[in-house]
């Protein structure tokens, strides 16, 4: 039996390849993700091991505020007296204060290098000759004077800066320095794409930290003293509020933080790989379903001459296992290429990640095989079971077509699932909305449509194809009939496309609605004339810009917004600080109290948050900022807005008091009466010139920059979903090719009675277009529904608008039709090339 399967497989090499392709792409995407994240992870692991090589112990502030992605935890600074204290501990050979702060280098062209809000960090610190300094001078000298700096070689290259040049560093205040040295990181130009500015101790404290303070103290142990010993000895003398860890622990911590960030990133990419594999499984299911139907006679013959059901089941499963193994091998190899492609995609989206030598771990290889084989064999199982049920008598009958009637069970289950979907969605959008319910509803909707697909396929393709007979005559009639002659097959082929398109539709609708909501807020609530924001919507700029603007004659009022991490109540959260005059620029929908009186110990709270936490005017909220202990803040204002202000905010004064680094992420400006818009913009732009990361926008420009952020995200998601859609198109081509093989005699007959090759191609092409449009129509229907449900469920989060971007959806339909035409090229050509006599004679 095994020999028979293998021979059969070899005889159908091409089909084996075409079928494998559907899984190959999913496996490749998955392996690419694993390889990329492993590679980036290894690069960072090595990097931190190098950075901390000379460090035996590390002293720092004890209080910590975790960031959202694990790698931006913040701690209070420590006094420089700690250095002397630690240096005096027995077994300490050297103790060096360390400053790590924000420092962004401005290139020769006036543009700031890097984007700390969205990419590798840009940091500044102390340049020392100590073993604790991981950098080495490649050119020039160490910085001695207050305005001298060493920069990393990557920044020097990117910014076209050389030793002896004067350059601007944003700290975030712009400062002027003379570059006296260029440093490398081992053999690398820069540690993982990060930029570095090194200055003498006093200058680094002054510019990147705080005079008299360090962020940490690095310790080198004396010979013969272990890391643990030196750590324990230091711990014994440290005052409260400080902690000490070994160099190894520090490295581990750094590596874990990166792994956590990468894990997040990996999960997202694997989700899309999973979607692609899910879509691929439909192709396998479909292909094997058709193969089994076509081989009914052969299988029946096997049964008639004594093969058991089990043996028949096994032949089909063995074929699928080969598909799986082939797909795993090719997918794994292709994955390495995909890793590079993904990196390029992420680079293009602005998420630059450093990557050294490619890492293919054992677990990646194992995963590739488990997933490739698993998807192929699982998807082929149901067709295989159907094959095993072929009665021996079928060998005597004429080739039987697949049963096309939908079973009663299918209808009942389908209707029940759709009912569950409807109930879940209804529950999800009612009241305050429930995202888990919408999620359940989404899942049930898709499953329901998949189950009911064969019932929907005929009426929908019939309706979509209604104009075809009039447009294309007999070819149109045939294309329409062919598309619905086997609704089960058409449905499962279209379903693969539906999945990808529904996600595209959902994202498109949801993004359009979100953007409309944001635009509404901007239109309704913004009173400001000009908005200055960090470039690309991320990062920030010096608060001094707001001060500069206040001095301008053209300007009536200036208000700033900054944000950082704080612990509110029990949980770590984004905390914003607003100038207390911001009420004049932005309508927060104040219900009680006022922003003007927030002062140093007041907080403004969103009404929903207030309700959830039983807060009223006068009650207090505990907030812990990085540099301060836990303080109680009195609720002095309640507001309804959610888009700009989030759940709570404090005054900029309160914010500045306990945070380490202060950036404004937005500054709002209103013009003095009678100042022309162009004059205002020109004045603000002049003032902002020394701050290269600040972008000046009027309201329209601000809207556009918001839209651009949505677009970037959308394009990234479209790019990731493209694979799933591409696989679905492969599925259409595959189904068509198999159907054509099945219809050989019919095609021979049509050619004999006068169908031209062109008409044959046209028939196949239109059948393909109908299948593509069926998948697209179902997908857009589902996507629209889910987009609406999601927007409704998030009304209380500030998503007040619902918008259907008809233009974009129409473009998707047109693209689907074109894709259908493209998918049909190869099958259509094969169909047209059939030899008539062979076809007529074909069994």
């Amino acid at each position: 039996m095994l020999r028979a399967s293998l021979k059969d497989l070899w005889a159908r090499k091409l089909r084996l390849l075409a079928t494998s392709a559907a899984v190959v792409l999913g496996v490749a995407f998955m392996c690419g993700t694993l390889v990329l994240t492993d590679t980036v992870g290894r690069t960072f692991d090595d990097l931190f091991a190098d950075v901390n090589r000379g460090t035996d112990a590390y002293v720092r502030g004890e209080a910590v505020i975790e960031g959202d992605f694990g790698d931006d935890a913040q701690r209070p600074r420590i006094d420089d007296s700690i250095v002397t204290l630690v240096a005096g501990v027995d077994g300490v050979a050297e103790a060096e204060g360390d400053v790590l702060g924000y420092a962004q280098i401005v290139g020769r062209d006036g543009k700031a290098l890097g984007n700390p809000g969205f990419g590798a960090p840009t940091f500044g610190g102390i340049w020392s000759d100590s073993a604790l300094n991981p950098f080495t001078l490649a050119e020039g000298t160490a910085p001695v004077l207050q305005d001298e700096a060493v920069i990393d070689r990557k920044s020097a290259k990117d910014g076209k800066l050389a030793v002896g040049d004067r350059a601007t560093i944003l700290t975030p205040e712009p400062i002027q320095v003379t570059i006296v040295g260029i440093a490398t990181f081992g053999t690398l130009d820069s540690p993982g794409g990060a930029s570095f500015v090194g200055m003498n101790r006093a200058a680094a404290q002054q510019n990147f930290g705080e005079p008299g303070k360090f962020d940490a103290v690095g310790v080198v142990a004396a010979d013969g003293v272990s890391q643990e010993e030196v750590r324990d000895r230091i711990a014994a003398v440290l005052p409260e509020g400080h902690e000490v860890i070994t160099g190894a622990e520090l490295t581990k911590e750094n590596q874990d933080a990166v792994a956590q960030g990468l894990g997040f990133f990996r999960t997202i990419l694997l989700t899309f790989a999973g979607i692609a594999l899910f879509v691929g499984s439909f192709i396998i299911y479909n292909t094997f379903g058709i193969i089994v139907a076509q081989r009914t006679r052969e299988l029946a013959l096997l049964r008639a001459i004594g093969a058991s059901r089990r043996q028949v089941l096994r032949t089909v499963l063995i074929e699928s296992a080969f598909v799986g193994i082939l797909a795993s091998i090719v997918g794994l190899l292709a994955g390495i290429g995909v890793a590079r492609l993904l990196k390029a995609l992420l680079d293009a989206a602005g998420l630059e990640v450093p990557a050294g030598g490619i890492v293919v771990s054992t677990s990646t290889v194992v995963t590739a095989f488990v997933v490739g084989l698993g998807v192929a064999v699982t998807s082929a199982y149901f067709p295989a079971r159907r094959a095993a049920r072929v009665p021996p008598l079928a060998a005597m009958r004429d080739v039987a077509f697949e049963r096309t009637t939908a079973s009663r069970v299918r209808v009942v289950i389908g209707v029940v699932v759709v009912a569950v979907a409807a109930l879940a969605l209804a529950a999800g959008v009612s009241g305050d909305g429930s995202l888990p319910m919408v999620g359940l509803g989404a899942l049930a909707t898709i499953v329901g449509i998949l189950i009911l697909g064969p019932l929907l396929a005929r009426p929908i393709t019939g309706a979509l194809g209604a104009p075809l007979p009039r447009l294309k005559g007999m070819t149109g009639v045939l294309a329409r009939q062919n598309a619905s002659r086997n609704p089960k097959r058409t449905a499962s082929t279209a379903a693969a496309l539906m999945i990808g398109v529904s996600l595209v539709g959902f994202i498109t609708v949801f993004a359009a609605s979100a953007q409309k909501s944001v635009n509404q807020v901007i239109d309704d609530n913004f009173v400001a004339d000009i908005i200055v924001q960090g470039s690309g919507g991320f990062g920030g700029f010096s608060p001094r810009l707001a001060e500069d603007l206040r001095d301008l004659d053209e300007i009536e009022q200036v208000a700033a917004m900054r944000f950082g991490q704080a612990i509110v109540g029990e949980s770590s959260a984004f905390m914003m600080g607003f100038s207390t005059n911001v009420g004049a620029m932005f309508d927060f929908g104040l219900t009680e109290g006022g922003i003007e009186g927030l002062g140093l110990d007041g907080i403004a709270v969103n009404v929903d948050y207030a309700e959830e936490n039983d807060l009223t005017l006068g009650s207090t909220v505990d907030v812990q900022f990085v540099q301060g202990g836990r303080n109680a803040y009195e609720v002095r204002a309640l507001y309804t807005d959610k888009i700009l202000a989030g759940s709570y905010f404090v005054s900029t004064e309160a914010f500045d008091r306990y945070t380490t680094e202060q950036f404004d992420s937005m500054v709002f400006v209103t013009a003095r009466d009678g100042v022309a818009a162009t004059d205002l913009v020109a004045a603000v732009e002049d003032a902002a010139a020394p701050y290269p990361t600040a972008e000046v926008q009027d309201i329209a420009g601000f809207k556009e920059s918001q839209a651009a952020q949505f677009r970037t995200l959308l394009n990234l998601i479209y790019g990731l979903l493209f694979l799933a859609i591409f696989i679905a198109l492969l599925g259409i081509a595959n189904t068509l090719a198999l159907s054509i093989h099945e219809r050989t005699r019919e095609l021979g007959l049509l050619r004999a009675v006068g169908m031209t090759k062109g008409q044959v191609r046209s028939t196949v092409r239109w059948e393909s277009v109908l299948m593509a449009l069926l998948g697209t129509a179902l997908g857009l229907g589902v996507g629209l529904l889910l987009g609406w449900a999601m927007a409704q469920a998030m009304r209380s989060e500030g998503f007040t608008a619902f918008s259907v971007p008809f233009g974009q959806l129409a473009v998707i339909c047109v693209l689907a039709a074109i894709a259908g035409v493209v998918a049909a090229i190869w099958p259509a050509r094969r169909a047209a090339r059939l030899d008539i006599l062979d076809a007529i004679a074909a069994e």
Partner: protein
Amino acid sequence: MPPAVAATVTTAAARAVNAVKVYGSGQTEVRALDDVTADFDAGRFTAIMGPSGSGKSTLMHCLAGLDNLTAGEVWIGDQRVDTLDDKRLTQLRRDQVGFVFQAFNLVPTLTAAENVTLPLSLAGRKPDPAWLDTVIDTVGLRDRLHHRPSELSGGQQQRVAVARALASRPAIVFADEPTGNLDSRASAEILDFMQRAVEDLGQTIVMVTHDPVSASHASRVVFLADGRIVDELADPTAESVIDMMKRLGGE
């Protein structure tokens, strides 16, 4: 050289002139048609008979433009067939030729009526309603027009096929063992319809068969063996055909 039997007769619906068809080459060479010259008169029902491998199907396929000759000429009416490209051959089959095959004659997704008018629809032409009525009544399909092939019996399916072959009023209809899959009653019906199509409606039919009873419905039988025309018989009966077969087999 065989005599150019009827090269001057202009009423031939189809002609083969010194037709040669060779399959394979060298040792495995098979001469399916070995210098065949024959005329098939318009308005006549001709049967081509011969044992398996005699070349009767090949002759029909070449006459109908489904297969290419190695040498010689094939004509349908005044149109030389063997020099046409695929596109023109297709148009010729669509407009000038009708086909009835042994099995799988109909497109399963189309109704009987749609199958009947298929060649016309492919050409984008409207059928002549009076002629169509005549054809449909001749084959007795009126009450089955909106059924799909799967809802028709084998005999009914072949009747639809005959109607399709006649619907475009072609210069010639080729039938390849049209009753091969039918029981004797259904066979007799189909042959009867074909006969009436020739006698009452003035159509031309060339039928390949190995069944003497079927051949007896024709007005002329051409006998092939080893790729050559070996004899022919006018106004045959089943008995005379069997006699002829015996004689040829005995040679």
